């Protein structure tokens, strides 16, 4: 059974200079206990998609529509996230779905101690008394591996390092063991050695609390480490979908291929780096036809005229490209 079921999600932003389509008809589903990653460069709509799942986009300026936008909670109830009132969403968030963000310092309140901020989760959602909540808070801080939690609980966010702050956010997000954890670039702001710690912690928490994970990242190495299934997004559309092994070892879309090639291989020494020409098109100025056509090495006449459909092989492998799709089906 799917925890998250999104069909044909479209997100439109009203800006001063016109309307911008940030997400153009995206289908995403996350199964129970599954770890799904959305990969793409900045501006491809991956963060907006994840924020929409939590209904954290203010509307206006964001407008979203979808054919299906369902979240299934632990008791099996189907919640249509589009029609939920803000109050109903408040009860869903944290209890059933929670989110970790890229930059932990902007999501912690600088004038409240770490302990108070973690207590709030229990006070608000479990109607606990502050003292009782603090016991759970300390317990939770131990679970995410914070040394000396009693002392840390009385500190303010600025006294903690980036890695510790991210652990606090993970504690906050997972303290009510939600069904779905959304992680939006959780390690981008951290050092490599801390990144390894945090990724391991997220993996452990998901396993222990039987959470599904929706991970947003631009780092293919993180994808290989964390995910079971991958969506590759480009300019608001999904261009490729499949299991991690399929996508990273046998990419079919030229964009996915190029992304993988730009990461230099550790086993050989290259003289030059593989580069993708040009930049990601501006969302108000996307090319006609396939959005990747102006950067694509295999671009044909057809690509510049008509948007390719998302070809489905039938086993969860999908590619949005005209180029040699026949080969794809034959494997």
């Amino acid at each position, binding site marked *: 059974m799917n925890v998250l079921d999104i069909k044909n999600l479209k997100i439109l932003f009203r800006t001063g200079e016109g309307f911008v389509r940030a997400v153009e008809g995206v289908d995403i589903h996350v199964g129970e206990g599954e770890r799904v990653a959305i990969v793409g460069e900045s501006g491809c709509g991956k963060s907006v998609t994840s924020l929409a799942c939590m209904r954290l986009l203010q509307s206006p300026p964001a407008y979203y529509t979808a054919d299906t936008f369902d979240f299934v909670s632990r008791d099996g109830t189907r919640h249509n996230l589009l029609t939920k009132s803000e109050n109903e969403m408040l009860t869903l968030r944290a209890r059933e779905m929670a989110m970790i963000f890229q930059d932990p310092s902007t999501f912690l309140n600088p004038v409240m101690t770490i302990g108070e901020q973690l207590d709030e989760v229990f006070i608000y959602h479990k109607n606990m008394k502050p003292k009782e909540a603090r016991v759970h808070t300390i317990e939770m801080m131990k679970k995410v591996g914070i*040394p000396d939690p009693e002392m840390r609980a009385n500190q303010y966010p600025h006294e903690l390092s980036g890695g510790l702050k991210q652990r606090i956010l993970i504690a906050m997000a997972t303290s009510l063991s939600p069904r779905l954890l959304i992680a939006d670039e959780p390690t981008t702001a951290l050092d490599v050695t801390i990144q390894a710690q945090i990724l391991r912690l997220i993996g452990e928490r998901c396993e222990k609390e039987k959470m599904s994970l929706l991970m947003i990242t631009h780092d293919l190495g993180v994808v290989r480490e964390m995910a079971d299934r991958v969506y590759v997004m480009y300019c608001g559309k999904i261009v490729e979908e499949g299991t991690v092994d399929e996508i990273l070892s046998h990419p079919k879309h030229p964009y996915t291929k190029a992304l993988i090639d730009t990461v230099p291989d550790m086993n050989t020494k290259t003289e030059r780096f593989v580069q993708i020409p040009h930049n990601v098109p501006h969302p108000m100025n996307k090319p006609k036809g396939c959005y990747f056509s102006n950067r694509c090495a295999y671009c044909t006449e057809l690509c510049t005229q008509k948007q390719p459909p998302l070809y489905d092989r039938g086993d969860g492998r999908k590619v949005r490209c005209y180029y040699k799709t026949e080969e794809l089906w034959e494997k």
Partner: protein
Amino acid sequence: MGEIILKTNDLTVDFKVKKNVFGKADRLSAVHNANIEIKKGEIYGLVGESGCGKTTLANAILGFVPITSGSFEAFGHTIDAKTGAAEWKDARRHMQTVFQDPYSSLNARFTVWQIISEPLYIAGERDERVLCERAAALVEKVGLSLTDLDRYIFEFSGGQRQRIAIARALITNAELIICDEPTSALDVSVHSQICNLLLDLREEFGLTYLFISHNLSLIKHITDHMAVMYLGEILESGATDEIFKNPQSPYTKALMSAILEVNPKEKRERIILSGEARSPINPPNLCRFAGRCGEACELCHNAPLPDFKKIGDDHFARCHLIGKGK
């Protein structure tokens, strides 16, 4: 290659951190006895986590922060804590820098040609014809067009801004370009564009780079020599190939095992360091990595960090455990 253009001798940078109005000032040791040697035409990598002092080392060489002790030799000048402004200026003429974040390192009120030609203006060139001509010559070298020269930088993407910053660094014909994480603020697909551009420019102008990064896979591919820093201390240095083939310091090993590969050839056992870097304030005279090191022995916690040991022809590391059969 061969001629050494920059050499630091026990370069040390400390900052004074005041505790309170009455308190004694604490000493934050940002760079401690750093020795690096950069040869003409090479790319020298400086790796380490944030806060390890790699940027401070570069800033000390550029004169952005004062040197506490030690010195460095560059372009026929020896510069230490007492060097006067005139000599500084003369040495710095040969060095330029490209900063990490092109969104904050370029003046939003200047047009592109003004940004690019500003170093030349500061160096004493006041003729606008010359300034424009030089800016125009460079802007095409970095892959932008002449029509971009009269625009403001809000019109450019991150990659294009970094190209402008590179053009600015080149305009004074500097020989040593210090690149402080030039790609980490950029999108993945733009990374390679900027790296290739830097490689092309090195070829064309015979440049030397000091390349600061925390991205080890980038360092591996781009640099000839490298140094690994941890909390102000250089722990391992030498030829990049040798260090990657045979890392000696436990910290270097941990850094390398933290690299996440897209298509790993084999499943490796990851070394995950516990805890985080200790505070660089008033550090004891011991190995600064000992607290996080999985292999640390009694000696590491009690004896001062040993001197560099020669591992290979062009490979040095300092650690108590080297040669102890571990």
